[in-house]
């Protein structure tokens, strides 16, 4: 958490947005000025914008396309994008779109980020996703992202999960997977993400756990309104 810019990249559906939002909230506890930048040009759903209320409440700036969350399915980038590289007092978390196509959006920022040399580019991996079930397939996706983004990865985030049904055993079963990716890529495992309720069971077994609050689903009674 000591670099000015933290980028989360990975296969689509690997959990980047959820991690980015939780990470920004954690950063805000250490720094006065924190921003989260949504550079997703691929997916019109599940955007950082969905968490805008929580982010605003926490005093986190949101840099995102005016079309994000509007249902206008445009691959657009926000005009405030240069704030990320120009405003050096700002701590920025960048939520990059999925796969190499999503990472293409970084192209315009990559030279300035590289020149400043104050960034962490983290590869989010999930062994329970169908197209990245083993180290080899995950590394293939990562190298495609590396080529499209113009930035090298500096670390790995193990976000292996089965959504709300994830058990401690599921997370433990992914340790070897993450280690294999470490070995093949030579990148360090920076953290392992788990939902909050698994924290007690895993604390003594895995280093550098990062707890996540998951987003609410529309099919269940809202915790906010109660159910009577």
């Amino acid at each position, binding site marked *: 958490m000591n670099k000015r810019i933290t980028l989360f990249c990975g296969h*689509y559906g690997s959990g980047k947005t959820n991690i980015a939002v939780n990470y920004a909230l954690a950063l805000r506890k250490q720094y006065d000025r924190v921003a989260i930048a949504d550079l997703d040009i691929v997916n019109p759903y599940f955007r950082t914008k969905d968490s805008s209320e929580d982010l605003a409440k926490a005093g986190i700036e949101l840099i995102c396309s005016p079309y994000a969350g509007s249902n206008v399915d445009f691959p657009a980038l926000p005009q405030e994008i240069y704030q990320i590289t120009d405003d050096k007092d700002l701590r920025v978390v960048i939520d990059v779109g999925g796969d190499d196509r999503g990472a293409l959006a970084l192209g315009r920022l990559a030279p300035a980020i590289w020149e400043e040399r104050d960034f962490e580019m983290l590869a989010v991996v999930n062994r*329970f996703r169908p*197209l990245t079930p083993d180290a080899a397939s995950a590394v293939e996706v990562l190298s495609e992202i590396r080529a499209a983004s113009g930035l090298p990865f500096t670390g790995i985030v193990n976000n292996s999960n089965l*959504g709300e049904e994830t058990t401690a055993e599921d997370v433990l079963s992914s340790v070897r997977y993450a280690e294999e990716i470490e070995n093949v890529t030579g990148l360090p495992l920076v953290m392992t993400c788990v939902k909050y309720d698994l924290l007690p069971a895993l604390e003594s077994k895995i280093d550098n756990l990062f707890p996540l609050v998951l987003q609410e689903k*529309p099919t269940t009674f809202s915790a906010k309104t109660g159910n009577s």
Partner: protein
Amino acid sequence: MAEKVLMKGNEAIAEAAILAGCRHYFGYPITPQTEIAAYMAKKMPKIGGTFLQAESEIAAINMVYGVSSTGKRVMTSSSSPGISLKSEGLSYLAGADLPALVVNVQRGGPGLGGIQPSQSDYFQATRGAGHGDFRMIVLAPASVQEMAELTVKGFELADEYRMTSLILADGTMGQMMEPVSLDITVKPQPEKPWAVTGTKCARFHNSINSLSLVPEELEKFNSDRYERYAKVEANEAMAEEYMVDDAEVVIAAFGIAARVSKNAVNEARKQGIKAGLIRPITLWPFPKEVFADAAKHAKAFISVELSMGQMIEDVRLSTRCRVPVTLCNRAGGMIPSPEQVLAAIKQANGGEA
């Protein structure tokens, strides 16, 4: 049992199709089903299959016609406006008695509409997919697991009855991620003696055609087809019943609406109201008997839909209007909340909303 994977509904459909032996996918991208095409684009080249992004939806459905003529399993997918474009092709498939799997991950309409989930293509799927007398088998998944299972089932039914199977999903089903087991049994594919595979000078040539200029013959084709449809109606209707046995208020809902409704039923039961849920899994054939049976003890039905009220007509027909059927709905891409459904249950039960 194989380990579960975390999949989007759209990905589950694509993977299950491959599992079912489908090696030909033709489509044109449209939100919210694009991941089906994206997944096929990644996977098909690796397994010797064909992924082809057609120049339009119309082209794609006609490519489906072509491959199906050769007896191979084939599919296309789209979302509401794209399915309208496929309409002509669906009618031609029916006219030529060709099996195919078509997926509609619905979004709000009419017209170009929006990109949020909807169930407003119910009429189109169950009544008017195209011109002429024909039916499609319509399957309505309510979980990512079912997206996979019904895709396999869809291929099997399509082959068995030489019909189009349509997966009628919606944006939430396509986009939501859930753990899935892909340990799904696939029946061996049936022989297709009608397929155009080359005569090798050993048999008379087969012909795949929907043109029929002699009205007596065309009438016969239609009658034969409807005999087959009658078998489908008799054998293939599927529904999930949830706490229906003693229910006084019965909800009818499919897909995402059923998931919302199940939570509302649970809450109603906690509050002492005898509520239940019938979730049609096949929308055509509609599970009429399940509804007719429930109408013997229920005092009211509620049709919960992401539309202005389309399935409600089938609920009224199946219950023969013995008891009142009310509508609890959102439209245009909105989803009814469990609170809204609970209020409708209370109202139907005679209490205050």
